[in-house]
């Protein structure tokens, strides 16, 4: 450490001598090295349980590791769905619908050459679900189980070397979706490392890339894995370097000065300039909602009345907001997008209609002398939060016309997370009538996570404590459906209820803009939270 430290100091001194001189030569980069600036403030954990939300999974999940079930990220024109990953196939037991059998892919090897088989899979599940196993990883477990798994206690076992069986807490028709964020690492490598902090320095998975050179807060390398089991997905690149850059302006400067080839989420106002300067900007339709989650539990909250919730939804100038964001988002009038077959045919088609909003507010007992007052908790920044300050200020102004008197409780992202995990009446919520927090809408499991009344906080993530018996009934039917078709029918009806009952204020779906140099080839902007880096190449 000391030597290293002295070295750096000397570097500093030497730089003094050169200060004032500036050379124009750019850094030499090995061919086939793609440098990406993420929005995360740190390198996501490299242990196979990535933190930093779904961006962490995007860059530190599906790159170095594989899940049993994965996302098909090869198409840009339709919403991504799941495909077999480390499991070749799966089926729900026709008699006991709580049982699922997964056939594992044969001949898959970890980067250290050890085989991936049922024993390795069980060992990995123990890491998350078995508290007395030596590989139990409390932090990792919290993250993995935070994305609900519905696996019953001791709910998994090895049947033979290439078959495992899961038991869920209740029939869960969408169970395979739940498994897409549980990744598998080499047990042998963990034994060698001794603990997860050591393992993080040289992680070993089965993914198309090998994770190397982990430097906390600075960067991490993904090296091509030429022996990847899916020959179609052997990376074209030799290396990907990931940089955490939480500041949008820093990312932009890094791209424009040639320090990186690809940035996530450039500032919306920079997009025209980037296009003019010859950068490729992709705006993607992906399952993400930027809502206000409305508080139904706080006494005195105007949002306990469905009429007020609907009025609110009629009082958002979504088109104006999209203009503000330079087209980097699309209007949201429900949990799913309007083009999604599961959107259904709700009674309310929300648009900006102050007259109707006023009428609904009047019916709820608010009028010119009595505005509907509400305090919204907003964050200064945060994962997926887009531009919370200007966007909310815009909403505040647009709602004034309808008779809403909106004030804000501005907090840091961390404080918001704490509040979102507590009850809506808890002191952490500081008397807020809603929280503006961006949430994932990637699949059915998320509908259950955010809206099922049994998942009310602090047990689950239904912060607003919205409860609708009809919705809950449909939900249970959907979970026990025996066919995809039947499940989708129920889901469509559930979604119609969501739109009409409006537990959230539907505002926009983020377009997750990214900008890259024209030399980046083969990037497919899949309609998902994730991207397939194996297809990308550089000349």
């Amino acid at each position, binding site marked *: 450490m000391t030597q290293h430290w002295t070295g*750096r100091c000397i570097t*500093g001194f030497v730089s003094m001598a050169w*200060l004032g001189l500036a050379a124009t030569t750019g850094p030499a980069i090995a061919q086939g090295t793609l440098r990406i600036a993420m929005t995360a403030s740190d390198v996501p954990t490299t242990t196979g349980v990535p933190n930093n939300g779904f961006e962490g999974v995007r860059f530190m999940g599906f790159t170095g590791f594989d899940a049993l079930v994965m996302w098909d990220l090869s198409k840009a024109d339709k919403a991504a769905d799941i495909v077999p990953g480390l499991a070749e196939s799966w089926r729900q037991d026709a008699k006991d619908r709580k049982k699922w059998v997964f056939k594992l892919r044969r001949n898959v090897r970890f980067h250290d050459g050890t085989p991936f088989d049922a024993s390795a899979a069980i060992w990995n599940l123990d890491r998350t679900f078995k*508290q007395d196993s030596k590989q139990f990883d409390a932090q990792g477990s919290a993250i993995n189980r*935070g994305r609900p798994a519905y696996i019953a206690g001791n709910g998994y076992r090895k049947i033979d070397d290439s078959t495992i069986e899961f038991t869920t807490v209740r029939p869960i028709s969408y169970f395979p979706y739940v498994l897409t964020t549980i990744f598998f690492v080499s047990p042998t490598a963990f034994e060698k490392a001794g603990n997860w*902090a050591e393992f993080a320095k040289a992680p070993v998975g089965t993914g198309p890339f090998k994770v190397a050179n982990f430097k906390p807060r600075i960067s991490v390398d993904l090296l091509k894995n030429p022996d990847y089991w899916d020959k179609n997905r052997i990376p074209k690149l030799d290396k990907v370097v990931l940089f955490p850059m939480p*500041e949008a302006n820093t990312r932009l400067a*890094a791209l424009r*000065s040639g320090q990186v080839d690809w940035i996530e989420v450039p500032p919306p106002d920079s997009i025209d300039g980037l296009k003019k300067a010859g950068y490729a900007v992709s705006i993607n339709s992906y399952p993400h909602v930027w809502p206000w989650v409305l508080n139904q539990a706080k006494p005195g909250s105007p949002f306990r009345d469905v009429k007020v919730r609907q009025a609110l939804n009629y009082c958002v100038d979504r088109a104006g907001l999209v203009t503000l964001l330079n087209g980097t988002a699309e209007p949201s009038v429900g949990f799913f997008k309007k083009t999604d077959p599961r959107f259904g045919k709700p009674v309310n088609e929300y648009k900006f209609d102050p007259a109707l909003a006023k009428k609904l507010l009047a019916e709820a007992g608010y009028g010119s002398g009595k505005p509907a007052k509400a305090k919204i908790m907003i964050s200064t920044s945060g994962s997926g939060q887009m531009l919370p300050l200007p966007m909310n200020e815009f909403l505040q102004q647009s709602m004034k016309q309808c008779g809403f008197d909106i004030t804000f409780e501005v907090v840091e992202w961390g404080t918001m997370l704490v509040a979102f995990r507590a009850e809506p009446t808890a002191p952490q919520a500081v008397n807020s009538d809603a929280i503006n927090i961006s949430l994932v809408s990637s699949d059915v499991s998320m509908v259950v996570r955010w809206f099922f009344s049994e998942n009310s906080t602090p047990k689950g993530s239904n912060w607003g404590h919205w409860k609708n018996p009809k919705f809950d009934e449909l939900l249970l039917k959907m979970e026990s459906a025996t066919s995809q078709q039947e499940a989708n029918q129920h889901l469509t009806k559930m979604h119609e209820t969501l739109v009409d009952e409006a537990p959230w204020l539907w505002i926009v779906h983020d377009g997750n803009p990214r900008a890259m140099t024209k030399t980046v080839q083969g990037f497919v902007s899949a309609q998902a939270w994730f991207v397939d880096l194996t297809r990308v190449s550089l000349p």
Partner: protein
Amino acid sequence: MWYFIARRVLYAIPILLGVSLMVFLLLKLVPGDAADIMIPPEAPREVAAMIRARFGLDQPVHIQYLRWLQSMATGNFGTSIFTNQPVASELFSALSNTFMIAIPAVILGFSCGVLLGTLAALNNGTWLDKLFSSVAIAGVSLPHYWVGMVLVAIFAVVHNVLPGQGMGPEGFPASWEQIKHLVLPVVTLSLIPMGVISRLVRANVLEILSMEFVSALSAKGLRTRQVLLHIMKNATPSALALMGLQFGYLLGGSILVETVFNWPGSGSLLNLAIFRRDIPVLSAIILVLATIFVVINILVDVLQALIDPRIRR
């Protein structure tokens, strides 16, 4: 002298204890502990309890303080709640990154400051004095994070001659690439010490110039250079002391500049730790920075006492 040093060092112990108590109490003001922010509600209670127990969050406050103090005193700063990595290694690599810009910045600021201040004083009242004095006063009045932004826009984006973010490749010996990454943050960071030191030096030199012995020296027919040398000898100690303090301020204050330049130093680590309530990292970094500041203060005192024995009380 030794007695003075010993007293000064011993006195640092209660100060540091007070500092640690203050840091700890500040951290206890945080609504919700680190476990709240990290553990999703879906995670079972046992897992949450395990994590709390692991970080000692289930203990009474005074036990938490004593344990924390013990771990700080032994240099084992615990484990980061988020990255699960030892805090010590993260902290020291972050600190060394900050030293990497703070040391050149304070040297640059000191040299420019002494130069500007002396020149201004020697040309007292002329337009040169006004020019240099305004540069100095601008140095202390500029919001340096704003200057950083403007520098990045000009040098990194429009002209693309210097990198505007990050610290480039690692390792030693220093490569040209590394040095280029240093330029903008160092220049930005050097503004404040430059301003502060140049103002002090100007005032000191003016004072010395007005003293009788200087006129006497000139009258004795000594050449300007010798007079100058004499002035420098008298003006340097206080400037050096100020430089030490400024270095301490830079360490604590680099947070803004590091944010602008995405420099992975102690400031950005602090920002990150605040943002995600990573209490072990947060407490360690505040305490270590404060300790360094206390040590610098002692060094400065001792140095001053060495130069000017009257200070030893």
